[in-house]
């Protein structure tokens, strides 16, 4: 709740900027053709929403992002778990993960399309790859930094290997896993929209590109703002979820 409150407290600056923008645009100090007033954009937003087109385009983006993120999350967590169980495998896999992580994801799009085809599967696969790599790096790091004392303590009380993973490693890594999930989802959203800009006939990214091509400036603004709002919403969701599921977070060093 503190996060929400501090966000609201900071909202006055946004409101002020929007107000100034409105005045400048209405007073024609800024050319309304390039800088349509926020009130005009609101009307555009309402009329686009009424037509149902906007909702459908947003849903395309949300679906791609979620599908890619979910697939990447599962693959990333499962691979991390397998890798962390075998030291030899981990030493071999880590450099590979870093090399793949260093390649900008979007540049892999043509290659993935070459292999999978120009379809949604390749777009989702690319998003999943990005998520899986980030999750693996973050989880690897979290596992490495688990305090040895906690492991010793559990072992001393007679915990089995599986119990140590369940009772020590998992909860100790959970805060970092949540942070990684939040960052991953934001990145996944960025990647989805970028992919849609380049190669897609629907979704928010495609809408932005179409608006540019047809010089529909108001539509352009509205779709960019929506992309931002979507990202913000997801961030908030993950922060609230983390507060719910990691109530001890303040105490983890």
């Amino acid at each position, binding site marked *: 709740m503190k996060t929400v409150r501090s966000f609201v407290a900071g909202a006055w600056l946004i409101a002020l900027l929007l107000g100034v923008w409105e005045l400048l645009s209405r007073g024609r100090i800024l050319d309304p053709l390039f800088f349509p007033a926020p009130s005009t954009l609101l009307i555009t937003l309402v009329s686009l929403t009424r037509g149902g087109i906007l909702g459908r385009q947003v849903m395309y983006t949300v679906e791609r992002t979620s599908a890619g993120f979910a697939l990447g999350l599962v693959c990333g967590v499962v691979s991390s778990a397998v890798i962390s169980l075998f030291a030899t495998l981990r030493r071999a896999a880590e450099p590979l993960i870093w090399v793949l992580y260093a390649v900008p994801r979007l540049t892999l799009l043509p290659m993935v399309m070459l292999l999978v085809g120009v379809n949604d599967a390749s777009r989702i696969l690319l998003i999943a790859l990005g998520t899986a790599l980030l999750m693996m790096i973050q989880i690897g790091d979290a596992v490495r930094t688990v305090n040895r004392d906690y492991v*010793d303590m559990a072992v001393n009380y007679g915990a089995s290997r599986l119990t140590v993973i369940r009772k020590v490693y998992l909860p100790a890594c959970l805060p970092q896993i949540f942070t990684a999930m939040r960052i991953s989802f934001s990145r996944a959203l960025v990647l989805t929209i970028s992919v849609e800009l380049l190669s897609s006939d629907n979704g928010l990214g495609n809408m932005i590109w179409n608006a540019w091509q047809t010089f529909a400036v108001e539509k352009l603004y509205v779709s960019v703002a929506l992309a931002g709002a979507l990202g913000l919403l997801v961030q908030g969701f993950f922060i609230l979820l983390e507060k719910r599921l990691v109530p001890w977070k303040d105490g*983890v060093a």
Partner: protein
Amino acid sequence: MVRCQKVSLVYPFRAATVRVLSDVTFDVRCGEFVSIIGPSGCGKTTLLHIVASLLAPTTGEVELNTAGGSPATSMVFQENSVFPWMTVLENAAFGLEMRKVDKAERERRASGMLERFGLAGREHAYPHQLSTGMKQRVAVIRAFLSDAPILLMDEPFAALDRQSRMKAQLELMELFGSERKTVVFVTHDVDEALALSDRILILSAQPGTVIAEFPVPLERPRPLLPEPGDDVFEIRREIYAALGLTSMLAGVACAT
């Protein structure tokens, strides 16, 4: 009972090797409270890890006669002594949980113990909401609840202020009196060792080895601080001498 026979530990460091412990030999009888005092870095923590079988000695052996209890030991650390992701109740009951005691039973026993030691109402708090003193007391309660006959404590109260420390010491004495466990207690604090122990072992600086042993001829319950005129004053002086700290008791003259 704990029997350490010529326990040595050597570990490789860069090109050379470091000898941490050298032929450490001592016995602790069943139901005895033994403190180990020694300078920083003399391998006290390492020794406890070896007794807890978390670490294997290079040579020598540790024998634990525990009448079938398994695991035989419960450790209390100086820091990170409670799991941050478990509530006070879950932490206190962790030893019982590992022994497959069912949830209702272990929570009943843990909350009974927490209540007895003034932690009622804090059962569902997380460690970050507690003071350091409370965390350590929870850790001690967990060790006593665990059913392990031997408790190993690694400077559990070193980070506490004087008042919290005395409170924790009194609780430990009460628990020791009622639960009859064998305790090996590592500390820096000579007065703490005198207040708690039946016997005090002095470990030398690296490599650590037992250089002196002092029985504490005091009845229980006893005062936490030695009172002038006690026999214990003489022992205290001898312990400082064994640690090479006699000059510290004398103090330093101030120029006026």
